[in-house]
């Protein structure tokens, strides 16, 4: 019975069916002697009652062969838009014609047999040398080229449903077989020229098509593509870069002094003695011009040399430490991000990570990049400027880099102090701007996952945890990096696995499984189950069974 044919199934597809409670008689060739020449219209009473025509279904345009068919379609089945096929279709597309196929140069009568399954429609063209009618009422016969897309027509399984249109076309799969079922080759074309015969006139044949055209008709047909990937999971290491050469260290022009507090105080006293002022003013407008900068950085430097402090040709008696390297590393160590659930809940978007970096602020890190891995923080500081680059390494590979400044300037003149204030105010403005734009502070995020990391905070609003923290602000902030981890709190009923199971997506023999099982796809085969039982079993397996 045609129980499940709905508008959704047929929308946008064109096909034709013929159905009758009596045996079905097809086209062209003379009918066999015992074939009736007409059908009893009353046979449709059963069809009408068994066939659940919805209101939408009735609104589809139906094409029929004869005026009497049209009357029956309207009066008995309640169709509202019934037309004669002759009126709307050119004669050469009219399906009920003689059916012949040219096999190895010989025109041979044939008929169609079709088998419908969830895999699609298989059409077999069975050659014969004499009429083979009537077909079994359970057969489902014929396909017309203009109604080629019948993949979803697998619902038509009932014995009352026969299909005809057919004559010369090729369905999705077309095989010519002989009476014994062996495949016949050499098909070159089909013939459809002869008119149909008496007897066919009275077959209640309904041709229908969806009313509306597909609005995507201009789009090319779907084509097969995909596959052929390399599945290459290799990844190149991006280690911490080598320390760059010193360009601005101590040399004949410049010196990087790193005085102790006592040494600095002594130098300050010495700076303002008359002798030094006199000497320096030979070359510089004032003492400040000979001092490029005075600032402090938040690290200790253990390797240094000592010399008598001198500047611009003026030599003091103060012994002072100095260095020749410009860049120093500060290692904040590593954290291993263990799995919490050992499941998708540990991954994005369920779990999110926020990384606080001293002198930088809080930045988002892509969860999927760090779960189960070791994250390391390494600062590389330029002693000359106090600027730094902060490397965020994951399993010793650089994933993120941020820049900033970690020095505090110590003013040695009013102009120098003014510059420092302007710089600080500028940083504050930048911080506000970044928060306004991003909702979080990521001063410079060059790493591969930086942009992605902005979006991992689930559907809940992302709240900035800090702004830009450079220079003095950084000194006032937290000076140890930390991670803020936000992970879902799972609600797990006791013995959940026995009631609902966990995601599997594996192919398995059911006999190898134990416990609650939900099947996604199965083709039950090699069974002696009744057809209805197969459907029952499939439904049970897809709803969940206990093996």
């Amino acid at each position, binding site marked *: 019975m045609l129980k499940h044919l709905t508008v959704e199934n047929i929308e946008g597809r064109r096909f034709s069916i013929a159905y009758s409670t009596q045996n079905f008689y097809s086209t062209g060739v003379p009918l066999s002697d015992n074939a009736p020449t007409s059908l009893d219209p009353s046979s449709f009473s059963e069809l009408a009652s068994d066939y659940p025509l919805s209101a939408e279904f009735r609104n589809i345009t139906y094409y029929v062969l004869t005026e009497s068919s049209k009357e029956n379609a309207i009066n008995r089945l309640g169709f509202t838009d019934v037309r004669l096929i002759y009126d709307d279709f050119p004669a050469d597309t009219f399906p009920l014609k003689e059916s012949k196929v040219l096999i190895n140069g010989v025109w041979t009568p044939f008929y169609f047999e079709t088998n419908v399954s969830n895999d699609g429609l298989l059409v077999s063209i069975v050659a014969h040398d004499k009429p083979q009618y009537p077909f079994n009422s359970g057969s489902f016969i014929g396909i017309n080229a203009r109604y080629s897309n019948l993949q979803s027509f697998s619902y038509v399984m009932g014995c009352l449903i026969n299909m005809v249109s057919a004559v010369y076309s090729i369905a999705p799969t077309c095989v010519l077989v002989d009476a014994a079922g062996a495949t016949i080759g050499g098909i070159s074309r089909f013939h459809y020229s002869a008119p149909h015969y008496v007897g066919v006139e009275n077959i209640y044949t309904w041709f229908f098509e969806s009313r509306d055209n597909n609005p995507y008709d201009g789009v090319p047909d779907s084509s097969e593509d995909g596959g052929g990937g390399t599945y290459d999971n290799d990844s190149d290491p991006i280690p911490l870069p080598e320390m760059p050469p010193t360009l601005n260290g101590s040399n004949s022009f410049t*010196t990087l002094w790193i005085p102790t507090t006592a040494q600095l105080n002594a130098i300050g006293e010495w700076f303002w003695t008359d002798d030094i002022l006199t000497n320096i003013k030979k070359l510089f407008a004032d003492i400040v011009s000979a001092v490029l900068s005075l600032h402090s950085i*938040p690290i200790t430097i253990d390797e240094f040399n000592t010399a008598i402090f001198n500047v611009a*040709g003026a030599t003091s008696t103060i012994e002072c430490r100095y260095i020749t390297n410009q860049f120093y590393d500060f290692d904040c160590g590593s954290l291993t991000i263990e799995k919490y659930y050992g499941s*998708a809940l540990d991954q994005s978007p369920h779990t999110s990570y926020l990384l606080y970096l001293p002198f930088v602020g809080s930045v988002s890190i892509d969860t999927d990049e760090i779960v189960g891995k070791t994250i390391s923080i390494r600062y590389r500081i330029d002693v000359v400027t106090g600027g730094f680059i902060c490397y965020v390494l994951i399993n010793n590979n650089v994933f993120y880099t941020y820049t900033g400044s970690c020095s505090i300037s110590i003013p040695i003149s009013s102009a120098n102090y003014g510059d420092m204030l302007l710089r600080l105010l500028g940083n504050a403005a930048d911080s506000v701007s970044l928060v306004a734009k991003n909702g979080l502070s990521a001063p410079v995020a060059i790493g591969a996952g930086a942009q992605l990391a902005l979006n991992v905070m689930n559907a809940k609003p992302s709240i900035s945890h800090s702004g830009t923290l450079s220079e003095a602000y950084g000194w006032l902030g937290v000076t140890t990096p930390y991670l803020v981890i936000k992970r879902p709190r799972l*609600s797990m009923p006791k013995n959940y696995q026995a009631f609902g199971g966990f*995601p*599997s997506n594996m192919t398995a023999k059911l006999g190898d499984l*134990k416990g609650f099982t939900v099947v996604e796809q199965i083709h039950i085969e090699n069974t002696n189950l009744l057809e209805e039982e197969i459907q029952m079993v499939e439904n049970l397996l897809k709803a969940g069974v206990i093996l």
Partner: protein
Amino acid sequence: MTVNFYKNNSEREKMDKDLTETIANLEGVTKAELDILRPVLLLQYTPETYALLLDSNYFYIAETSRYYFMNKDLTIQNNQLIIVSGIVDPLTSHSDTIRAQTAIIQRQENSYNLYLDDGVFKIYQNPIIQQKTFPKGFNLNNYTYVLYTTGHNKIS
């Protein structure tokens, strides 16, 4: 037709039912033509049989080689016959056939991959928040002055 009645203590969707036999090898006939999937049986009425049937919810027909869930609408006809109906339990009846099938498994109790996110899990709206500090941070007591000077320095 030989029928065995049971009390089924298992879920309907369990393949291997936990059965307690209530009546063994009871002879009966079908009310009409045998519907293999939905048989209706006529059994000889005795008060003892009826009482045992009331305690039954499952039966097996040897001739069809199928197990059935017993409908609870037991009918006594003229104090002579008991009408019993049921619907086939295809899962148990064909367990060997089903176990031989191969399928794509959507969810499973013991064979699973928790990194597949099928959105079935439920989570509370109060997430777990943790903070983890790195082993080492900047110690501001260990600062260094940097005095950067220019102009014909002598450091050797």
